[in-house]
């Protein structure tokens, strides 16, 4: 797909995050995942409510959200009110919902996409960045478990960062998962926070029209830019979005 020959002056160069996204998708495709994509301007419902993050709940403070200015927003429901998506978790949730409606259970989706956070920028924070998200859902008898999530993510990070990588889970909280964990990877002797995830919260399963007594699964998500920065030693996340071709070294 990409030969990306530096010696061939004729061929253009790829953006490092596209290269990483292609590799990430491949790693998940090899484990049986389907790619999901979705809009960057998301409904409040899919960005928050469906994921068990109700209005006026402190959990909404965990993400600084860009709300779309709309004089009529007060009259609208969460399904019509728009935000710039703060994660791609809503994309995999939507894809899982659609698959289930078509009788596709078990299902496994992965999505890489641009997300937005309303925060001051610095070397490690940007208003836009890429997130990779995944969701696996099956019948209770399929037994998709935290151990499976660990297996999948260990394999993924080995593909991304090398075979000598180690993965560990630490306690965390997300409204859309229970149990919730933080994924850490040991890269060159240091433990680095890579991702959040856990077993899909029964409330989310109900919100996408399924019965949590019959199905269970897990979902996870984290920054793609961060993997790129760690992997290649890119010192500043803002470099990815400046349109500077000096970035395309990889």
């Amino acid at each position, binding site marked *: 797909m990409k030969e990306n020959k530096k010696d061939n002056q004729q061929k253009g160069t790829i953006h490092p995050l596209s290269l990483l996204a292609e590799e990430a998708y491949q790693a998940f495709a090899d484990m049986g995942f389907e790619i999901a994509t979705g809009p960057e301007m998301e409904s409040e419902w899919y960005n928050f409510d469906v994921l068990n993050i109700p209005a006026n709940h402190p959990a909404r403070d965990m993400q600084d959200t860009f709300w779309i200015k709309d004089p009529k927003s007060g009259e609208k429901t969460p399904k019509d009110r728009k935000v710039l998506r703060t994660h791609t978790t809503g994309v995999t949730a939507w894809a899982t919902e659609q698959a289930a409606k078509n009788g596709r259970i078990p299902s496994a989706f992965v999505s890489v996409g641009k997300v937005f956070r309303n925060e001051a920028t610095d070397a490690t924070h940007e208003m836009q960045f890429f997130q990779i998200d995944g969701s696996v859902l099956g019948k209770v008898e399929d037994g998709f478990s935290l151990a*499976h999530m660990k297996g999948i993510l260990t394999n993924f990070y080995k593909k991304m960062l090398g075979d000598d990588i180690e993965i560990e889970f630490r306690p965390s909280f997300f409204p859309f998962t229970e149990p919730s964990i933080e994924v850490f990877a040991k890269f060159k002797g240091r433990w680095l926070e890579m991702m959040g995830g856990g077993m899909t919260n029964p409330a989310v399963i109900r919100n996408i029209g399924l019965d949590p007594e019959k199905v269970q699964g897990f979902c996870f998500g984290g920054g793609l830019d961060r993997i790129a920065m760690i992997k290649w030693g890119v010192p500043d996340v803002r470099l990815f979005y400046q349109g500077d071709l000096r970035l395309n070294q990889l």
Partner: protein
Amino acid sequence: MKISYNWLKWYVPEAPEAEKLADILTYHLAEVESVEKLEDGDSVFDIKILPNRAHDLLSHQGMAREIASLLNIKYIDPTPKYKIPESKPTKLIKTIETPNCRRYMGRVVRNIKVDPSPEWVVKHLKSIGQRSINNIVDATNLTMFDCGQPAHVFDLKKVKDLKLQVRQAKNGEKITILGGAEKILNDTMMIIADDYGNALDIAGIKGGAYAELDTDTTDIILECANFDPTSVRKTAQALNIQTDAKKRFENDLSPELDWFGMLELSSLILEMCPDAVFEDIVDVYPKKQEIHKLSFSTERISNILGLDVSVGEIKDILKRYNIEYTESSGVFEIIVPPMRFDLVIKEDIAEEIVRIIGYDKIKGNIPKINFQPKLNETYAKIVWARNKLMNDGYSEVMTSSFRNSGEVEVLASASDKNFLRVNLADGLMESYKLNKANASLLGVSEVKIFEIGTIFKKDREEMRVAYNAGGKTTEIKLEDFCKDMPKDFTLESGSWNPEAKFKMWSLFPFIARDVAVWVPENVKSSDVEKVIKENAGDMVVRGPELFDEFKKDGKISYAFRIVFQSYEKTLTDAEVNEIMGKISKKIIGNVGWQVR
């Protein structure tokens, strides 16, 4: 949240030393972000208490109970040691006139003296970054940081007829809060007021100046209450007030905690003011917190975790956490402790078990998923478009989705760019200019770039492809760009260089120079290149690159470009001239070589 190690040790004297404890907490409870050593030998943890445990862990006693259960060590319950004052009948009347107050507890205390706090109180508060104010206010703060229950004290002489009510504010009602700011309230906000229309306190958030204690205060009313989390959160947001009390209430506290708060507060005041006269506690608690039961099977917990958990292990954990249970053939029914609002569904129990026994016990394995993935058409188009453009010599860039103007605006951006882009072309043109200026650094004669991304129109978003060659941009919809995409296009697996590394470029300006050399026809360009390289020094970031060659009269001309740049400073023309001079000198030192 800040937790003092020495304070914790009152309740868990067998706790491991600070660094070790921090490590255990990070792996079994919540991240300890820092451990600060204080001069007096104490260590202070900054712990990122997770939102689902903010009901019961935003306090030293809460943390101590958790540590005792987690490590199966002794917990020393302070409650039996509290000084219980003798109590007299009271005339205090408290009423709840809003559904947003779940419990309201008060107590009159007379004959107190507002004084500086004893040394140990000052030290405790200081260790967690709190300033000592006076003995009475400190007692309320100490109660909150110790047992988790926010408390408040009113000056009794300001409370007419000893009547206090919790009610919704009136629209336009005003209150001057502690510190002096005036806030205008509305009927979504809950306050504590007297019967004469004086607002005394924004419930659960901040006290008012009207009934503030002063040095002459002798009689006070203690308050421990419980308020609806959403109401407190909305009010605090609307009034833009952040307090430690608000943080606790918005996370939903158990009304059962009020009792412990009042007990501890009374005991502290008695200790600081031994002559104080206490009256009976007035407790308005219209609807007692319900007892919740929760049922789960060992089998399902194991299924969720992917880890075989035994009945014995679960029993052991429940015992350590003082959770009452019954069990039959692996199915448990538990009575959820009143403070543990986080335990609602069996998945909560699964989390509780795995964090206690350790996430490292879970061994990863990749499942076989019986699922037939389909091709994602949008992504296939993106990849096809990208490959096509790259094959045509275009390089990929990404630019900001935010612009100064557009059709869709975001609210309250942290930057000055509040609009979403309506096209890719504008960003791409800026990128073109940047890269054009760097063309010699990039080693290209013509800058050719592209971006694939989303643009935002008034009522929709759209995926676009834009490409720019030599400053001229073409921008079309992704689907139009891909109309020649083969029907059978599939994503192929790529290969990348696992050893690749990024090298940050210098932020100083570069200088590009050309040198053209006449040499006899039998001299190869690599011979000339070698001479240039050997004499160009260590500031060369690109080249020498041969960009022109031609023959004439038995001689051949080679033209090279060299780009100089320092990582430490701005290079001057003089510095580069000197290097070029050195190169020229070396070149003409060869017989038949000459610099054009």
